[in-house]
């Protein structure tokens, strides 16, 4: 059985996946291939079909059409073996509030034939001091870490995390990212969903951007951002009463891909700041134009999503 997985070339292969709820096409033809050892992210707004996709992969929902193969195994033949080898964290599971941290991890450990020692896992998720605390008394971040402990206690080959840091404070999120990165270093495969672009950029080797049940872009975070044709965005404004600058003139500056005048300011999408910014300053100095303000930011997956859909990734 074990040899089957080592030979399997894909940790996860999804082909033509469809799941409809009445007229709602929650998942509408998704294809994903994830090689072993990769951290793969499904990024998209709420209701994009991320959770439905991941729950079909987890064998918790039956697809209307399509193929799902995990570690070279399929749900209809190999459910028991798959359950032994997958680690799963669901969105919004409330673990038994009256049990302690240790009792909870011990319970989940007991379901797996082989796995990690309870103490070891509690230590890894940094809950040593809370091992005898009731689950109901834990903070949000501690609960998420406990959920992660329950997901990795079976020493899974493939780990599914559905919105692992949603609703957490920045410090707790960073703590969870460290833990997930740690798990990644063991060479295991991780599939995660998120609607945080920074999370996807930090954790994921590759990202699929999902919208309306379809994958609208797929690649490494770097590739996706590069597909914008610009890694950075420069915005500047001139002192009042300055005559306008021609967009074509700006476009001729070194490294500028796109130049636009927006509401009295100028936005340049550029390849490299160290080329464009000195060129811009020299150009302004030569024309004796006074700069009122200048800002730059790196292009993000958010910009990718906006340029693909014309909408923001997050409602807030």
């Amino acid at each position: 059985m074990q040899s089957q997985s080592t030979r399997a070339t894909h940790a996860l292969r999804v082909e033509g996946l469809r799941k409809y709820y009445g007229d709602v096409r929650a998942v509408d033809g998704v294809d994903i291939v994830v090689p072993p050892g990769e951290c793969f992210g499904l990024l998209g707004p709420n209701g994009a079909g991320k959770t439905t996709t991941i729950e079909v992969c987890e064998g918790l929902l039956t697809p209307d059409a399509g193929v799902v193969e995990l570690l070279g195994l399929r749900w209809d033949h190999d459910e028991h073996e798959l359950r032994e080898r997958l680690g799963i964290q669901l969105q919004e599971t409330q673990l038994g509030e009256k049990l302690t941290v240790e009792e909870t991890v011990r319970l989940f450990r007991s379901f797996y034939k082989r796995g990690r020692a309870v103490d070891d896992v509690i230590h890894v998720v940094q809950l040593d001091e809370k091992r005898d605390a009731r689950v109901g008394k834990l903070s949000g971040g501690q609960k998420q870490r406990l959920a992660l402990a329950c997901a990795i206690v079976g020493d899974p080959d493939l780990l599914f995390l559905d919105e692992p840091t949603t609703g957490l404070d920045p410090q707790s999120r960073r703590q969870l990212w460290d833990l997930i990165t740690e798990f990644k270093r063991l060479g295991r495969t991780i599939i995660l969903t998120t609607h945080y672009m920074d999370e996807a950029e930090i954790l994921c080797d590759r990202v699929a951007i999902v919208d309306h049940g379809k994958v609208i872009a797929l690649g490494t975070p770097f590739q996706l951002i590069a597909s914008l044709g610009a890694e950075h965005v420069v915005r500047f404004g001139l002192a009042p009463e300055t005559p306008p600058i021609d967009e074509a003139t700006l476009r001729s500056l070194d490294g500028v891909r796109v130049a636009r005048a927006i509401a009295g300011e100028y936005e340049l999408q550029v390849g490299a700041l160290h080329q464009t910014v000195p060129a811009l300053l020299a150009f302004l100095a030569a024309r004796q134009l006074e700069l009122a303000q200048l800002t730059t930011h790196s292009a993000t997956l958010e910009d990718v999503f906006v340029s693909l859909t014309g909408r923001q990734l997050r409602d807030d």
Partner: protein
Amino acid sequence: MTEQHGDNPLLQLVLVRFREYLREPEALFWSFGFPILLAIGLGIAFRSKPPDVAHVAVVSGAARSAAYVDALRRDRGLAVEALSRDSARVALRTGRVAVVITPGADGGNGVEYEYDDTRPDARTAKLLANDALQRGEGRQDVLGASDRFVREAGSRYIDFVVPGLLGMTIMGGGIWGLGFSIVDQRRKRLLKRLVATPMSRAQYLASYVVSRFVLLTIEAVVLVGASVLFFKIPMRGSWLSIAAIVVISALAFGGLGLLIAARSQTIEGVSGLMNLCMLPMWVLSGVFFSSENFPRAVQPFIKALPLTATNDALRASMLRGVPFAALWPQLGVLALWMTICFAIALKIFRWR
């Protein structure tokens, strides 16, 4: 990093059941405190008392009034007081006396009894008073009669009600014990999380059966033990057959609890279903009063209810010592409920 041995999953699941239960003070009260309080309440209401005394009033002022009072006082089953006509009326109306006796009411030697003929205690009081007065006036009995008093355990109300309470406890434990816990776990998506592990679903359900049996054993021993000790409830059948009835009933109600909890996603939903199932049985199945009081036409329906079968079997065994084998109709009803409920529940159970 990896180790080969985890704990036994069934043991862990059963431990979880106990921990969740013992860490919930309300649940502890309902399974132990409530039956004990109920038993104490019943104990006060049905404690051993001397035989009831019938209260009668004689209207004073007539020629024979004093003589009547003397004659009535000779009967120790009567408490007599002499009252004016108006006070006697008031006493009758408020129930302080059962009969008002008016000497010479017809203007001569006769006597008038005033009482409510629909009240058995009033009729008894009238008969006792009449008997005492007739004898006082010199009546001779034609038959020589003597009394032998028999006070048999097993025919009192407390004897009737204790098996009913035991049946009710078994039903409540099975239905509440499974229903709330399972639906709560489904509501919190814990059930879905559990089936995402290699956990055996059979063991998950078995953990409820095992923990219910342990708790039920304690509940039943406390209730029956206290009843035998304090109320001298007879245990004419063997302990083994009573235990067997309890076990079969627990399985039948466990199945019913599982069926009720099979699909509900909210506590409100499952509460409604539980009440829908239990309320008719509380009323119809003879917990506090005999189900024989209901019309003949509905008797077959009442007999088919699991709580009726449990209560009937427990009473037959405890109070009359009916052998286990002779209880097959009740045991059959329970086995049928158990089989049907478990079969349907497992088929339609919503794990996600």
